[in-house]
C-alpha cells in the first residue's frame, strides 16, 4: 500500500526524481549497499551504540528506580528533579555532553544512555510505588522478611511498569543515537549517513538509511513486545 503510493507519486512526477527515487531504485540500491557497500557496517555501528546506551541506561536506571520507589520519602524529595530530567529532551543536552565528553564515540552513547536512564528510572520507581499493597501484605503476614518481600513480590509487581520503561528507553536510545550521529562529528552510523546523503544529494542512500533506521526501530520494539508477553504472562488477568 505504502509502496504503491510511493510509486504513484514517482510515476506522476509530483516530486522531482532527484528528491524522491522510485521504491524499486531505493530497495535495489539498499540491497547493493548492504552487500557491497558500507550500509551494513553503518547499521551495525548505530545498532551497537543503541544497545550499549540501552544497557548502560537500564543497568543504572532499574536499581536506582527501585531504590527510589521503595523509599517514598526519598522519592518525594527528588520527585521534582526526576520529573524535570524526564521531561528534558535528551537531544537538548547534546551541547552539554559535547563539553563533557568531547565529540568522541563515547559521547553519542553517553547521551543516549542518559535518555534511557531517566525514562527507565522513572518507570521502575513508579512500578515499585504502585505495587498492589494487598500482595505485599499477604507476604508480610506469611512472615516474609523485607528482603524476601522485595525479591519475591515487589520485583514482580513492578516488572510490567519497568518493561514499559525499557520499551520506551530503547526507542529513545535509537532516536538520540541517530540525532547525535548527525550533529556530533562522526564518521560512521546511520545518522551520519542520512545527513551526508542530504548534503551531497545522495538521496537514494539517504532513503535507504532512513528505511534501515525504521526497520531497526521496528524490530527492537517487536522484540520487546514479545519479551513482555512471555515475561509478564500474568498481565491482563
Amino acid at each position: 500500500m505504502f509502496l504503491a503510493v510511493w510509486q504513484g507519486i514517482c510515476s506522476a512526477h509530483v516530486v522531482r526524481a532527484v528528491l524522491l527515487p522510485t521504491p524499486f531504485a531505493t530497495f535495489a540500491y539498499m540491497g547493493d549497499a548492504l552487500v557491497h557497500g558500507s550500509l551494513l557496517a553503518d547499521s551495525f555501528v548505530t545498532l551497537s551504540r543503541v544497545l550499549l546506551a540501552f544497557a548502560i541506561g537500564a543497568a543504572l536506571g532499574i536499581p536506582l528506580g527501585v531504590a527510589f520507589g521503595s523509599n517514598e520519602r526519598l522519592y518525594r524529595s527528588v520527585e521534582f528533579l526526576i520529573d524535570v530530567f524526564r521531561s528534558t529532551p535528551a537531544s537538548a543536552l547534546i551541547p552539554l555532553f559535547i563539553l563533557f565528553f568531547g565529540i568522541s564515540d563515547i559521547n553519542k552513547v553517553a547521551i543516549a544512555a542518559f535518555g534511557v536512564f531517566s525514562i527507565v528510572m522513572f518507570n521502575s520507581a513508579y512500578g515499585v510505588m504502585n505495587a498492589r499493597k494487598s500482595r505485599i501484605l499477604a507476604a508480610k503476614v506469611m512472615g516474609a522478611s523485607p528482603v524476601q518481600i522485595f525479591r519475591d513480590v515487589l520485583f514482580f509487581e513492578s516488572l510490567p511498569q519497568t518493561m514499559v520503561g525499557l520499551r520506551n528507553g530503547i526507542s529513545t536510545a535509537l532516536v538520540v543515537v541517530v540525532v547525535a550521529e548527525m550533529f556530533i562529528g562522526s564518521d560512521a552510523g546511520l545518522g551520519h549517513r542520512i545527513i551526508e546523503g542530504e548534503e551531497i544529494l545522495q538521496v537514494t542512500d539517504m532513503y535507504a538509511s532512513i528505511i534501515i533506521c525504521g526497520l531497526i526501530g521496528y524490530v527492537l520494539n517487536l522484540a520487546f513486545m514479545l519479551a513482555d508477553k512471555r515475561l509478564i504472562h500474568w498481565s491482563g488477568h
Partner: protein
Amino acid sequence: MTAAAAMPPPTDVPFISVRGLGKSFGSQLIYEKFDLDLPRGKFTTVFGPNGCGKSTLINMMSGLVPFDAGTVEIGGKDFRSARIGYVFQNYRDSLFPWMRALENIEYPLKVRGVPRAEQRERVERLLAAFEITLDLKRRTYELSGGQQQLVAILRALVAEPDVLFLDEPFSALDYEMTLYIRDKLQTVFMETGLTTVLVSHDLEEAVYLADRILLLGKRPTRVVELIPFDLARPRTVEIMGDPAFVATKQHALHLFREEMKR
C-alpha cells in the same frame, strides 16, 4: 493433620486476648478501649453493621494494620510472634500470579526456610487431608474464582498457623462455589481444631459456620454480644431449619436491629 493431635482439647480459656485496643483513621475513632477474648479451637464469626471495623479488627490482630493503643496476645504471646494464616477477600489481588498455584501454596514454607522436598510433601498431605483435587501446575489466573480462593486457603493453612483469619472469603464467589468452599472450610476446622476467625457480611452464613458469633456495634466499636452456637458438626444446609439455628439467628438479628436504632 498433626496439628489436631498436638492441640489441647478446646476450652473457653482465651486464646486471642485483646486489651485496651485503640484505633482511629484520621479524626474517625474506630476503636477505643476495646477488650475481647476469643476461645481456643473455636470457630468465631464476626458480624456487625457496615463500617464498624470488622475487617479492621482482624487486620489489627494479624498485624496487617497498625493500631494506636492496647495489646493483642495470641496463645499468651504478643501477636507479632504468632503464626498467622490469613485469607483475603480478594484472591485475585492476594495470590501471586507470577507463580504457579503450587508455588503459591508453598510460599509460606519457603519463607520459613523449609527444604524443598518437605514443602512438596506438606502440600501433598494438606491436599489429601481435605480431599482437594486441583491442578497445581496451573497459573493462578487460569483457575476459577473458587479454585483460586481454595489455593489462598491452602496457602494460609500450609504453615500450620496458630490462628486462621478470613476476611469475607466468599464475597467474590458465586453461590455454588460459596457452598463448596464453606464445606471445605468446615472440614478443615473439624480436622484441625484450628482457632478460626471469619468476618462475614451475611448473618445466616455467620451463624451457620460459627461456634461463637461476635456481634459488633456501631463506632466507636464495642462488643454487643459474643453469641454461642454449639450445634454439632458437620453442619449441612439442612440445619438452617433447625430450631436452635433459627433461634440463634433471630436473637442475633434482634440485637443487630437494636444496635442500628442507637
